[in-house]
């Protein structure tokens, strides 16, 4: 093998200066190392045989990967690692061959749309799919050229099956509501169009990063959207890379009972109809007092913000609802609480006054609702350990269990 040939081969495998490679290779040869061995030693030295990989070729278990890609999405979040809070960055990146989720364990200053060369990252398996991990030692360089992203047929999904961090999806739906907003992206003002859309299976929030001239009531098909989590719930995002067309279809969401595992696994949602048994009435249910100025809940007549105040009474229930497949907290406001308990707040205030104990209200809620099946309609809000649903409607239910049992019996051929 000729000297020049070896140098070319090394340079095609690693990222290094020609001058340096020539100098090093000469050094090896001067020591009497055969050229083939010297070549391999240098390839290892400058990146362990790492060759730039296309995204589709990255497999779980790959180490020391070099790749070039465009950042499609990036989210910052805090995680707890051995008792310490640290920031990590998660998102999607892609090239002309594929798209892959990534986690960056330090701030590389990455932004949506950046094209970067990444050296020394590794790939692990997460839920059966490869995921890139950018560690402290990974080198990330922004580059000037652009990358044409892959055009794979998008995955067609119903809105109920949309999950955070999936990309290249195709959805159809009707624009339920839309509004124009100005947002700040890395110091730059951008106009986005966000709102709610629906199909037959769910309602979901969306954000369009481009003016597709959408208006309320439009039925559309979006190809090449992606999904990310917004306040714990999935949100559809689409930008100039997506294809949006208006369609002539009548689309309407009619709420139907959704098993709670779907609500929990997708991270909540809007206008959900659920059924389950109340397995716990949280201790902060019953008569509570709110600050007359800020409406916050006060304790022993003191508002955190406004000090000693004359509390305004309110009635509410926070209860754990579980259907055997998942569990959520449900919050019933005064109006719904009065409906469920068939008693007004004034009645309860009087009851508590007579007994000189607000605990009597809690006891009555437990008596009437604990272990009772209920049906609830509402929107989820983000919370840490459980999904909470703010009820917009709710009722106690008594399904026809004999009929259910007979139907199930037929299903199993009994």
């Amino acid at each position, binding site marked *: 093998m000729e000297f020049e040939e070896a140098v070319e081969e090394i340079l095609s495998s690693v990222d290094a200066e020609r001058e340096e490679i020539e100098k090093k290779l000469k050094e090896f040869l001067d020591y009497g190392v055969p050229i083939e061995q010297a070549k391999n030693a240098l390839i290892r030295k400058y990146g362990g045989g790492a060759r730039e990989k296309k995204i589709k070729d990255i497999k779980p278990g790959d180490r020391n990967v070099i790749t070039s890609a465009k950042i499609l999405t990036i989210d910052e979040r805090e995680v707890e690692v051995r008792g310490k809070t640290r920031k990590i960055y998660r998102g999607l990146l892609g090239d002309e061959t594929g798209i892959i989720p990534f986690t960056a364990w330090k701030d590389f200053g990455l932004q949506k749309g950046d094209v970067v060369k990444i050296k020394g990252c590794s790939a692990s398996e997460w*839920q*059966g799919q490869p995921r890139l991990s950018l560690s402290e030692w990974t080198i990330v360089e922004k580059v000037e050229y652009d990358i044409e992203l892959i055009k794979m047929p998008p995955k067609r999904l119903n809105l109920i099956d949309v999950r955070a961090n999936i990309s290249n999806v195709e959805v159809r739906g009707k624009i339920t509501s839309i509004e124009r907003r100005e947002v700040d992206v890395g110091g730059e003002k951008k106009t986005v169009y966000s709102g709610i859309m629906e199909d037959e299976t769910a309602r979901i929030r969306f954000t369009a990063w481009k003016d597709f001239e959408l208006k309320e009531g439009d039925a559309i098909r979006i190809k090449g959207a992606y999904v990310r989590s917004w306040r714990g719930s999935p949100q559809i995002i689409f930008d100039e890379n997506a294809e949006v067309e208006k369609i002539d279809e009548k689309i309407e969401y009619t709420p139907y009972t959704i098993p709670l595992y779907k609500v929990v696994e997708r991270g909540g949602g809007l206008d959900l109809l659920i059924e389950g048994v109340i397995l*716990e009435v949280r201790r902060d249910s019953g008569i509570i007092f709110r600050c007359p100025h800020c409406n916050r809940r006060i304790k022993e007549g003191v508002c955190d913000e406004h000090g000693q105040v004359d509390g305004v009474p309110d009635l509410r229930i926070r209860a754990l609802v579980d259907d055997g*497949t998942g569990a959520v907290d449900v919050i019933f406001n005064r109006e719904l609480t009065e409906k469920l308990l068939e008693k007004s707040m004034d009645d309860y205030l009087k009851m508590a006054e007579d007994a000189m104990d607000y605990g009597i209200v809690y006891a009555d809620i437990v008596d009437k609702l604990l272990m009772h*099946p209920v049906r609830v309609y509402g929107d989820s809000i983000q919370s840490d350990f459980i999904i909470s649903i703010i009820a917009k409607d709710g009722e106690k239910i008594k399904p026809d*269990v004999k009929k259910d*049992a007979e139907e199930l019996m037929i299903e*199993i051929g009994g």
Partner: protein
Amino acid sequence: MREVAWRIFAGEYSEASHIIHGKEEKAPKYVITPMGAKVNRLFVVGVLTDVENIGKEGIRWRARIADPTGIHNVYAEPFNPEVASLLADMEAPSYVAVAGKVRIYEPEEGSVYLSMRAEEVKSVDAFLRDYWIVQAARNLKMRIDAMKEAKSMSTPSIRQLRELGYPLKVAEGVLEAMRYYKDIDIEHYEFLLREALSYISIEKKESSKEVKEAEEKLLAIIKELQGEEGAEWDAVIEQAAKQGIERSIAEEAIANLMEDGIIYEPELGKLKMV
């Protein structure tokens, strides 16, 4: 995330012997049942057959709750005196609902005793018991279906099961059960499912007040006479007659107690409490 409360028949829960311990210190423990439930919390509704004080200080209680397939052992622990006192005041037999956590006792490698630690307890009605049976049956059916699907796959995976629409916990539990339990007898659980459901679909005729009152007395008689082997049927009827209960009433009361799963026949002509 908050763990779901599984509705699971005693006939399946008591057959479980596989426990998964999480890697982290505070990670939840799960009981993997033969049909792939991955249980950390439970919700059980059934007939309370007896409550007994087992604590030295009178603060730990054990209750037995019968469902159509077997008995759930439920404990109220001293650190939850409210639940303990609720349980202690309940009458047996009566319908009761309990929500709580798995209670695992592993005295040595390879032997596992499973029960339940109560967190919420309430007296309920027959409707909730039937509602519970339907929910437990549906859940079991879903897992039976998932296991059959998994068995038909060349390399079963959580992803494939989820793509078929099964919940993550079910997919995880079913695969774990297939790894651990050898030769799972799916037919046995299909039989159990049918048994439990037939419990509801049979239209029960309303018993007279007289029969209902007799049930309590007969239960006391059986308890007194049963010993190890069970009480002789004839001796029970005889004793009932002495207390002024007619034979036909006594027989109907015994039939009701059996139907409710409070007593059974260990052998023909003998009666015993479950």
